[in-house]
């Protein structure tokens, strides 16, 4: 499961990507506002706003809110999971879904002008003449945008066309200054890709262990301006976003279950993140999905199933749901739309080809415009932009430097390093893969070439890298100076020292509890620039593990013995022994008490008292 790094959360909360609607209408229910997916109900495409947003009360309160929210979600998730399982498949009807994902490319400049691409700058400060469609200005394709675009397409197993072209897609909207969007309709730069989803990606049970979803094409296009809705029906426009480079990923209609659709979108995000192609994740508006939904009867008796898309035949009439901005919205909207279509068909009605919208928290999709309101986009090859020629050498270079993709990495982590799939996925999704890199370097350093050592040490290290290091980050209170992992695994935590710490722990020279303390000291020293020599820290604080003598154990055991408990134990409640062991461990200094030994001593004493 993808986690959202606190940095990202912070950016959009303080940057003010709080839904307008949420602020204006749901002020009283602010606490309920989905903290983990603070997206606009209308989709970020239309309703971004910076104004009128109360900055949430202090970070601490927010974190608490996050926790509560997570708990609540967990509870809800458990509750709704049952419902979902029933929801994934219907006896009589077959669902077909195709998805279009828009993702903002990670480039310093816009697609056709050298204005900087920014996220939360002051409105209308990064706009070139062409972005505003000033008469007489002309586009200039920024070659640099190709690199993340090609990387993304390669990660999606696409064939890259050495020659592709830009087309104009015409429609009128105030967020589209030129009256057309430059996109790639006739000759996209990448085609015929696929993505394999596994059970651990969260696909529907019915899809088995893995399913391959075909990708029809990946194309580059321009983003639109950001509309900021003001009270009184006023719309302000921020042209900073206009012309930012996007890629649109279009799948084949090969998805048949709602949760698979959500898993697909989630995995696309992880993948784009892994190859550093995209700016931000779905929750912060860098990724948006449109879904095409159709249903048909399984027995094939329905007359309406004569539609075709990209060579797939016998589909029902589809409707498009635009601007879904969270994974949950994808799943819920598909379920709602499927149910609506079935209801219409079962009542003898007909599905209209139309565009529909979805609001988070609603129970159904709503009609945005029908076929008669559908725009004929009048696609035309752009008459002044030349073809984009990508040399095979560049493709090859990018392919070779693509790195290990998350799927392959998870396989390595589970098979070689003995992690669970869940831990492996968490590790991979953190810090752009830097955390996983750190983990692997550490384990390799400790375990050497021994494969079995890797397995056992992997589990231990995984725990430490995931949870203990993660704990440091959260408790330090200063999220901006967290471990600062970069993609190659360098961070504030010196690898060497971390390795020696784990070595001491593994050799039993320090206890788990003390090693956590040492870890914190390491982190603080590293922040303040003090010495991070583990051995020295342990020495100075006198933290070496000294095993207690049997006598000391006995003394300790006697000091906590409670006659009542002893009686209970003697009556056969053996579980109570562990309670006493716990007491002993609490009493002992710094985890010096070895539970195994303590139990032996306790049992011995109790046996003695029996007689």
């Amino acid at each position: 499961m993808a986690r959202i790094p606190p940095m990202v959360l912070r950016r959009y909360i303080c940057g003010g990507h709080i839904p307008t609607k949420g602020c204006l209408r749901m002020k009283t229910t602010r606490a309920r506002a989905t903290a983990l997916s603070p997206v606009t109900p209308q989709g970020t495409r239309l309703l971004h706003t910076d104004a009128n947003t109360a900055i949430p009360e202090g970070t601490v309160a927010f974190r608490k809110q996050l926790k509560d929210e997570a708990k609540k979600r967990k509870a809800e998730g458990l509750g709704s999971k049952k419902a979902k399982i029933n929801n994934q498949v219907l006896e009589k009807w077959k669902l077909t879904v195709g998805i279009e994902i828009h993702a903002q490319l990670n480039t310093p400049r816009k697609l056709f002008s050298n204005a900087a691409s920014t996220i939360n700058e002051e409105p209308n400060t990064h706009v070139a003449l062409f972005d505003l469609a000033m008469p007489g200005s002309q586009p200039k394709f920024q070659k640099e945008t190709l690199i993340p675009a090609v990387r993304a397409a390669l990660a999606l197993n696409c064939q890259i066309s050495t020659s592709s072209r830009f087309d104009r897609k015409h429609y009128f909207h105030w967020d589209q200054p030129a009256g057309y969007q430059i996109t790639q309709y006739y000759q996209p730069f990448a085609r015929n890709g696929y993505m394999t989803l596994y059970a651990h990606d969260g696909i529907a049970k019915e899809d088995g262990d893995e399913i391959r979803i075909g990708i029809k094409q990946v194309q580059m296009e321009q983003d639109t301006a950001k509309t900021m809705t003001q009270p009184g029906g006023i719309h302000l426009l921020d042209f900073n976003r206009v012309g930012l480079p996007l890629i649109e990923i279009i799948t084949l209609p090969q998805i048949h279950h709602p949760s698979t659709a959500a898993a697909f979108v989630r995995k696309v995000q992880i993948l784009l993140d892994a190859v550093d192609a995209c700016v931000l994740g779905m929750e912060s508006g860098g990724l948006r999905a449109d879904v095409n939904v159709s249903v048909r009867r399984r027995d094939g008796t329905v007359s309406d199933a004569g539609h075709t898309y990209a060579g797939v035949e016998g589909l029902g009439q589809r409707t498009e749901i635009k601007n879904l901005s969270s994974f949950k919205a994808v799943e819920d909207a598909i379920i709602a739309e499927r149910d609506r279509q079935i209801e219409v068909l079962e009542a003898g009605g007909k599905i209209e080809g139309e565009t529909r919208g979805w609001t988070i928290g609603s129970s159904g999709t709503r009609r945005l415009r029908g076929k008669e309101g559908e725009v004929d986009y009048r696609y035309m090859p752009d008459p002044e932009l030349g073809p984009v020629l990508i040399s095979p050498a560049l493709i090859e270079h990018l392919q070779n430097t693509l790195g290990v993709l998350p799927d392959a990495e998870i396989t390595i982590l589970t098979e070689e390093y003995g992690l669970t799939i869940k831990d492996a996925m968490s590790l991979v999704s953190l810090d752009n893969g830097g955390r996983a890199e750190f983990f692997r370097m550490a384990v390799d350093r400790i375990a050497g070439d021994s494969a079995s050592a890797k397995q056992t040490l992997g589990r231990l290290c995984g725990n430490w890298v995931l949870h203990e290091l993660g704990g440091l980050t959260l408790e330090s209170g200063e999220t901006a100076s967290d471990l600062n992992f970069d993609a190659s695994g360098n961070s504030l935590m010196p690898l060497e020292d971390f390795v020696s710490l784990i070595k001491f722990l593994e050799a039993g020279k320090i206890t788990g509890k003390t090693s956590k303390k040492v870890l914190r000291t390491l982190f603080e020293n590293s922040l303040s620039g003090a010495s991070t020599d583990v051995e020295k820290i342990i020495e100075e604080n006198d933290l070496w593990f000294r095993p207690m003598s049997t006598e000391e154990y006995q003394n300790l055991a006697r000091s906590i013995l409670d006659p009542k408990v002893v009686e209970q134990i003697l009556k056969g409640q053996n579980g109570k022994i562990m309670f006493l062991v716990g007491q002993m461990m609490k009493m002992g200094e710094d985890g010096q008490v070895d539970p195994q030994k303590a139990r032996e001593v306790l049992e011995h004493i109790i046996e003695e008292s029996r007689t």
Partner: protein
Amino acid sequence: MEENVVRNLVRATRSRLKTDYFNAFISTTDPSAITRDGLRESNKLGADYRFRPALGALRLKGRLKLLAVKDNISTTQLPTTCASGILQGYQSPFEAHVVERLCDNDGCLIVGKTNMDEFGMGSHSLNSFSSPVINGSSLTRDTTQALSAGGSSGGSAVAVQVGQAFTALGTDTGGSVRLPAAYTGQCGFKPSYGRVSRWGVIPYANSLDTVGFFGRSVADVYPVYRKASMPDDRDPSCISSATRIRSLSLRSRQRKKARNTKTGAKEDLSELKIGVPVEYNIEELDPAVRTAWKKVLEILKEQGCKIVPVSLPMTKHALSAYYVIAAAEAMSNLAKYDGVRYGSRTGPSDNAGDVLYSETRGQGFGNEARRRILLGSYTLSSEAIDNYFLKAQKVRRLVQRDFDRVLKFSNPLRNEQQFDISDLDESIPMDNKLGPSQVDYIVCPTAPTLPPKIQDVLKQTPIHSYMNDVFTVPASLAGLPAISIPVPTDIKYDGSDLHMPAGIQLIGQYLDDNSLCKFALDLEGLIKQAFNPVDPGYRYVHHGLQDARGSDDIVQVCKPGYRPRSVVRYPATLKPRIGRMTVFSRVIKQKELENFARTEPATSNLASPNPEEVDDLFASTIDTWEQRHMRLSSTTTDAPSQTPAGDPSLSITTNDPTQK
């Protein structure tokens, strides 16, 4: 320049700018900004071109600094409105590359922004939000007599014609520079597509738009063009310097090969092969135009050029293809005018649909713009794109192929093509058993007729007026350089005693602009020689316009202490010395201007067609295209062998002019 000449030049230009009888300008610079100092400064124009010896010492080249700019080329000094209601008062925040190039470093003075057809859509400069342009040869503002100046750059042509400017910038999409040049008797040059940066030129149809140049003679146009032609990376379609160099070396290699020498010495007229496209000899060709065409060919023949008939069979489809492509691109380019960020705005919003600006666009665009937007929207719609837009693009390729096959030198943007003789149309004459002849340049009329009367133009259907572009559109579709030069005729214009020059067009291979200009320069001199004196009664030369080498009189004039008259009149007997530089076009006399001013101004009939007719026109337009298209699809597949209709005398002339 000599002091008194400059003074006179300044005075004359100021006065002519103040009285804009022919509606040549939409906005003008304050005449007091035109100063002697501005013209006297060392002129950078022409300082960096290679043909200086051929042009001679341009003692009066400072006059070339008086530049008129078409109103669709962005300037920061004056508004840029494209003669459209929707851009009224629009002040561009940046300057077009071509204007930057020409005006930097004490370069040109912009005298004003010239009138045009709205966004360049039209062939007579009547579709203007401002008043319609009138040809300077009209000599009356009476609508029954006023002549069309041609379009869409009619204002620029007239400004040069009546001496308000000495060079002018226009834009040529389907003949918008060459046609007005032909109608007003000026020289108009459309360089190869991409030679001059379009940055700042407000697009009508991006894949066809080219910045073009007007002047009284090729010698005036050429230095301005040379100065303006520069690589510019802000225009994605502007030819890069690498390609320019490559095309030069390719050309020189091919020339050496063709002449079987290694020296690549200077090209001589007698070595040239001139192509006469048989398809252009149409029935509707005006006798005066045909006479001028024949005369030019005879002159070239005398010089030893080989005149050969060539066939450009796709010409008959070029016009339909052009109007499909141009309308489609226009629809796209004009989508940005919504009155939200700039331009005029009507009505706050309309709540009927989702669109904020149907009202603004409905009010802002003129009829012709609306017609082409509708047409473009239709031809690009999902139901029609296959039958119209895609077919038109294919025709465009075939038109380019036609030219590549006929021209001797290969197109530097494409690999050299081998043409299989069996693929060729039967009507194409063979030179020898190896195939049809390949020529250096193509010589043909610019327009089928002399300038029509405006009242006749207004009676035409749009389709009919589109026909004016029939000879200019093929070169535009192929992106080739083409230059229109005036050729006088002895046939009088439509019952009057006027001799109107006809425009003759020279077309060269892509990026071969320099050689083409040189050829035009030579031809200009030869025409001058052949026709001199044209019609002594009408040879008036604006003071200060005449080139130093042109006549002894001017040399006199330039001497200190000489008090010039505003107009120099040549005695009928005087034979001015022949030189390349002589200004050839007929210049309007000051007295004529005054007479003109006294005539009754046009009161009616110049208005655009009734808006209600637009729908009908659109329907009929589509019908006509429908018919054309049927022909088009059948001919592209069957390639019928049609002998071109027309005057057989021309083909005799072209085959062997000496027998005539």
